[in-house]
């Protein structure tokens, strides 16, 4: 059973687009510098073509279901928000909020466990990073 599926056709197209963007970028470089990237883009494009051709022949249609992706993408969004918060409110508060939110979402019970983890973690990070290593958070 080949690991390729019809879905890889879309992947292949996306990759082509990305490669084209990279190639355009190489136009503005000195010729010496653009040699290696172009070589890689070339090999990459050939491999991509192989993949697309084989994907075309495939009968399987293992697709990513939206349902499956929902939770991870939600968490990813959460991480992005977390980082933005980090910039403005500081590490400890934003981390506390992030952990609170995630653990409630994951239905961690009982509640005191959540608080214990958050407090324990923040204390650990504070002692190690701020006090010992002088990192500014």
């Amino acid at each position: 059973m080949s690991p390729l599926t019809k879905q890889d056709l879309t992947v292949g197209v996306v990759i082509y687009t990305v490669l084209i963007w990279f190639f355009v970028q190489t136009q503005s470089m000195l010729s010496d510098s653009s040699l290696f990237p172009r070589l890689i883009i070339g090999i990459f494009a050939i491999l991509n073509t192989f993949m697309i051709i084989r994907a075309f022949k495939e009968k399987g249609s293992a697709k990513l279901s939206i349902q499956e992706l929902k939770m991870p993408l939600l968490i990813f969004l959460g991480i992005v928000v977390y980082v933005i918060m980090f910039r403005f409110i500081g590490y400890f508060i934003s981390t506390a909020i992030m952990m609170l939110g995630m653990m409630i979402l994951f239905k961690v019970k009982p509640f005191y466990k959540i608080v214990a983890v958050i407090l324990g973690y923040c204390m650990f990070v504070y002692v190690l990073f701020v006090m010992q290593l002088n990192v500014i958070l």
Partner: protein
Amino acid sequence: MIVQAIQLFFTPEVLIACIIGVIGGITVGALPGLSASMAVALLIPITFKMSPAAGLVLLVSVYTAAIYGGSITAVLIHTPGTPSSAATALDGYEMTKKGKGLKAIGIVTIASMLGGTFSALALLFIAPKLAQISLKFTSLEYFFIAVFGLTIIGSLAGKSMVKGLMSGMFGLLVGCIGLDIMNGTPRFTMGIINLESGISLVPAMIGMFSISQVLISVEEIRKGKTRILDEGVSGLQGKMIPTKAEFLKIFPTILRSSVIGTIVGILPGAGSDIGSWVSYNNAKQFSRTPEEFGNGSMEGIAAAEAANNAVTGGALIPLLTLGIPGSGVTAIMLGGLMIKGLVPGHKLFTESGNITYAIIIGFLVANILMGIIGLLIAKQVVKVSVVPMTILCPIIIGLSTVGAYAINNSIFDIYIMIVGGIIGYFMRKIGFATAPIILGLILGPLAEQNFRQSLVLSRGNMFGYFLSRPISIFLAVLVIISLFSPIIMKTFSKNTTESTPADTAKI
């Protein structure tokens, strides 16, 4: 002099430095984002107030212990604590999922200890000779070593060779981002100044390994599975210490990897990350069970960990004898040495001999101590794999973020981590292996720079230059063997899973 050195070592200040160094090093190494180089750099000001022997013993102890520590989290939560443990994460985590985390930690600890001790002995007894060997390697040799490392991509490809190679290409391309070192032109930097030095390796790695792992775990949480352990695995199995049979199987690997690691270490600029990959690849080629690699191979993690610790001792050799650091971390230590008035060179082994040998002894003891401490805490540490993912995931996110930030006090690095995370996640979902990207990122620039340097050094006559360098020829042969070994193995393998013969030929 050795007697004096031993006396010097057994003073309280130095002994304490050694112990604290090992414990601190293991801790820092285990935490994602905190690497050995960071730990050593931050400790240098602290060594100002210590005696030279104590200060340097602290640094070398932290160095080797941190390289070991990185493997702990690599094995247990698929989050290499240091770049040198990226190879360990592959097989180590697979073992943890099967409940064999304890055994994995045991193997990793023993391998690290043996590798480090081996290189410590090399440092103690044959340092000057090895240093001379390191001088025989220059740009062309480095180029071939880098290419050899890149041929590993084939074996890391996982189920689809084409996709694995494409991952590697992606890594190579991303490795080009930044200022071209040869002439200063920006490549793919889009005007962003933070990209001029390229994509920082550690945040990218944290993203691709840890964050993507969190996202994958989250899927499973949604499905109701809240633990790292696979279905059907009831709890932690097995003992920590490998059985006699297992040990006999992995011992040759450890020995070979220690040699490889020490050699990579003595090469200036080549560090534990390169050493672990080269050794992993080598172990796979020599293994009788290569199909295990990537699925929880004991040989694999033993190879990677023995090598990356062997690099630490190897790297100290050119540092102490020539003043040329053998790795990134030893580059930082050079400053620590010089501030104490310890100037590298033969004077270090004669005039300051007692201090120098005390440091080397300290390094040797640290490696052994690290193994002992590791084994003692292993049973406790491995319980991490039983902590529910619902709690682990937020902690990993928090830890990864602070780790990525702390390296350079840079929010930009966190962005890199996030981008790495989402790319890593999708790649894994659609069947692209992520390890080749890291390889491409590390080795691509190495290969390109050294090749272009070789062009200049060959003074216009590349062919003649190549033929005049026996080491290059040897390495080139190794590369060819490495390139064709997967093909040879596939053609001769009895259980081909490919549907058409055409697929086998079309790598």
